[in-house]
């Protein structure tokens, strides 16, 4: 028994979950319970494999005789893959608990093919896990394509609506463009290294220009998959359209596989990191963070909002990676390790809380069939436990202590604060500015999630469907509860988590983050206790102590309370339409940051014909569009179509022209051969 065997078993379980669902048309319970159990097993085994490899710092390689006869599959499980195995495994486990309850709706509707849903979910997880095990470019690309294509089929699952088909097509197009760029990047390394295996690529000797080209290609490719600005357009289109547990997997895990690819390629295969790359990653990360959260603030479709927040969090991860690259190049590996740890920790945290939020959005959708925030409200009374879990997710993503989102953001800030140790004055000014942008984004994210939670769960229901929603079943709650508990645990014990993942920087950079946990499990001291320290357990103890004291004091002097009407300015009956909507909540921020979007707002006042001063009806239309569409994607799209039109002139439809083509080609070839 070795971690690699566990990894193979988890792959097998993923495949089994797909195959079990093949007969789901006749036996729907096969999809609901059969494949979910296999998925759950897969998740557990993946966590086991990854944890074992990470804690014991084991690296295992293997060659499997699949693929082409002269090109075996090379597979490797090392601490970096192990860490991402844990990320995938935890989320797959939570989704497997959640799926039976959620899929009940699909089973009862009987419109679509259940078999394809189960099969492609299994293949999707299989593809992701195989990417993590890949030790040569061939396996990597095969698994990457498997992952992309099976998720395409999942995104296009509800293909009755043309909007869904368009979104899925955009997703497929961009996934393949990214895949092509990654393939070219691997190609550069393979041509210098002599073969496709990662070992050969590690040993390859690249000139600076070629290394930069390879880095740029793979950064483009992996960044497109991860959803960095401006290559993020597919994210907010594809994630809302997929079934909610698939959105959780895509947003929580698939984006992280892209980050894994970037780390593997840059730190492991390329090795010699330049500070210019780090600066590019840092700046694009900062731009993604700010723009992601600004776009998210304007959304009132819950899942689209969450998808834009994924863009923001990927930006934070990229910022950590960029800082790490800059410090490594400057000869400060200890600080580079800090940046890498911050990025990896945020990867784990984002998977957990974004998965939790998407599962919660799915629960709301399941209970009320409502996606639009402006029609929700008061769900805290209808879905009490979902509300608690969703609140934990909101607190975590807003980066509030003592939960996990705060710890990784704190580590990123600490890494940025070490900028004065760099020699370059320009870097010393740019890094604090990007840190200020990160602070702005974190505060805007908190604003966004006050909006989400306040409009969706608090207040009074704004529509009939929402007023009669029912709490979701135990499986769905268990899935969300698992993720919520993990969010809390990873927030309270950051030193333990860093101890777990310190094998990765040891493997990639040869340095361990010793100082971070030097003061024991209670204190997190990234550089030294004098520079910065944070004790999450003591904070939690302080909170608990305070809660206890206040409870005792309040119980000692009980005071009556009664229910009454809220203040209504004397106007009388308040209805649910008088509450703030999501659009209204974000209006101040829309006015302040107006240049960031394409906004068209139309206000129409209809007057009473007999009394022209009285306004009877006001119609408000607001359309907020992502600027990257009009500035980047549409021009490129039109360019491509124009070029295609020019090229299509060679297809004249006339037989004579085609014969002439073959004739002239034959003449050319004959001439060349002689």
């Amino acid at each position, binding site marked *: 028994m070795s971690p690699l065997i566990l990894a193979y078993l988890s792959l097998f379980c993923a495949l089994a979950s797909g195959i079990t669902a093949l007969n789901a048309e006749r036996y729907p319970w096969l999809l609901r319970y059969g494949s979910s159990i296999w998925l759950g097993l897969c998740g557990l085994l993946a966590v086991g494999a990854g944890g074992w490899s990470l804690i014991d710092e084991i690296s295992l390689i293997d060659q499997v005789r699949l693929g082409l006869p002269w090109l075996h599959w090379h597979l490797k499980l090392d601490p970096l893959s192990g860490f991402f195995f844990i990320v995938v495994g935890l989320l797959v486990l939570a989704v497997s608990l959640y799926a039976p309850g959620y899929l009940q709706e699909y089973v009862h509707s009987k419109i679509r093919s259940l078999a394809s849903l189960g099969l492609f979910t299994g293949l999707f997880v299989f593809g992701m896990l195989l990417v993590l095990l890949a030790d040569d470019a061939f396996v990597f690309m095969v698994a990457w394509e498997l992952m992309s294509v099976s998720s395409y089929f999942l995104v296009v699952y509800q293909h009755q609506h043309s909007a869904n088909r368009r979104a899925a097509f955009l997703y497929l197009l961009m996934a393949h463009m990214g895949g092509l760029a990654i393939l070219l990047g691997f190609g550069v390394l393979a041509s210098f290294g002599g073969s496709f295996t990662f070992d050969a690529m590690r040993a390859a000797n690249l000139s600076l220009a070629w290394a930069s080209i390879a880095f740029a290609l793979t950064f483009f490719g992996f960044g497109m998959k991860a959803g960095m600005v401006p290559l993020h357009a597919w994210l907010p289109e594809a994630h809302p359209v997929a079934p909610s547990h698939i959105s959780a997997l895509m947003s929580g895990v698939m984006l992280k596989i892209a980050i894994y690819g970037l780390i593997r390629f840059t730190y492991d295969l390329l090795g010699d990191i330049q500070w210019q790359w780090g600066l590019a990653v840092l700046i694009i990360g900062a731009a993604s963070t700010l723009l992601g959260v600004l776009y998210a603030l304007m959304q009132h479709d819950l899942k689209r909002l969450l998808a834009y927040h994924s863009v923001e969090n990927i930006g934070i991860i990229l910022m950590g990676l960029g800082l790490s690259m800059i410090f490594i190049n400057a000869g400060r590996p200890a600080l580079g390790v800090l940046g890498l740890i911050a990025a990896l920790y945020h990867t784990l945290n984002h998977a957990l809380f974004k998965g939790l939020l998407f599962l919660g959005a799915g629960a709301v959708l399941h209970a009320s069939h409502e996606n639009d925030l402006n029609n929700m409200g008061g769900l805290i009374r209808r879905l009490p436990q979902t509300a608690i879990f969703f609140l934990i997710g909101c607190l975590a993503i807003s980066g509030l202590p003592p939960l996990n989102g705060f710890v990784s953001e704190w580590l990123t800030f600490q890494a940025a604060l070490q900028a004065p140790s760099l020699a370059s*004055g*320009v870097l010393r*000014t*740019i890094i604090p*500015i990007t840190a200020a942008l990160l602070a702005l984004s974190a505060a805007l994210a908190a604003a966004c999630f006050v909006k989400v939670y306040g409009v969706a769960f608090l207040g009074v229901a704004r529509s009939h469907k929402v007023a009669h929603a029912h709490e979701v079943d135990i499986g769905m709650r268990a899935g969300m509860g698992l993720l919520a508990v993990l969010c809390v645990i990873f927030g309270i014990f950051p030193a333990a988590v860093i101890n777990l993942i310190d094998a990765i920087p040891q493997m990639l950079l040869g340095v361990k983050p010793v100082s971070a946990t030097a003061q024991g499990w209670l204190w997190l001291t990234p550089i030294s206790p004098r520079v910065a320290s944070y004790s999450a357990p003591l904070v939690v103890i302080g909170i608990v102590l305070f809660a206890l004291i206040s409870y005792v004091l309040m119980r000692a002097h009980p005071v009556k309370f009664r229910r009454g009407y809220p203040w209504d300015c004397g106007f009388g009956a308040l209805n649910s339409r008088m509450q703030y909507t999501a659009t209204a909540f974000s209006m101040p921020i829309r006015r302040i940051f107006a*240049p960031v979007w394409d906004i068209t707002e139309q206000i129409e006042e209809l007057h009473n014909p007999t009394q022209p001063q009285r306004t009877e009806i006001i119609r408000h239309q607001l359309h907020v569009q992502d600027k990257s569409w009009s500035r980047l994607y549409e021009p490129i799209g039109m360019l491509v179509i124009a070029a295609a039109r020019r090229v299509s002139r060679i297809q004249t439809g006339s037989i004579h022209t085609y014969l002439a083509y073959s004739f002239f080609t034959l003449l050319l070839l004959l001439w060349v051969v002689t």
Partner: protein
Amino acid sequence: MELAQLSLFNQAVLVLAALALLTSFLMLAQGRKLPLIYTYGWQGVLLAVTTALVAYVTGHTHLYISAALTLALKALLIPWLLHRLAVRLNVQRENEPIAYPSLLLLAGAALVVFSYYVSLPIVQFAASATRNIIAVSMSIVLLGMLLMITRRRAMAQVIGFMSMENGLFFAGVVSTYGMPMIVELGIAFDVLVAAILFGVFFFQMRASIDSLDVDRLNRLREVDE
């Protein structure tokens, strides 16, 4: 050289340099005429005090005269002239709306970083204690130019031009402890003459195109519309 190791007077010079940079930023974002003129006056005062302090620290007494000249000319006379001009042209209550002040201020910050980057090679080789101020004075020059570019009113452009000269003078004071007296007097009187000429120019402009908006000067071109 660490800040704590410098003498108190050198630290004061650094603080005054930073405050002069702040006045440059304040002028960038200020749309109203009179506060703009007063801010320029304050920049002159800061300059004069810095010159006096440098004179005290280094013992070059001719800088005291330079400081007095700066105070008289840049902090008192020219702002008074401009104020009088504004009142006579009846533009003292005018507010020029600035399109995106935050963007402008960020551009200013970028210019400060850029001038720091440009002045790094110089900074390495200078020997005096206040060599880092060269970056600040270059920023003041560039910010003055940015003020000239982004404004439509002639008055604001004049003040931008003047503050460019302030920056150059500042650089001269702190890096080479003043310029030869003849040069200083020459520049000072040049600036005074320029101020008077601008006054005449404003009236002429107003008379011919009935506005002080420099964008409208394009009516004077040869090509027919």
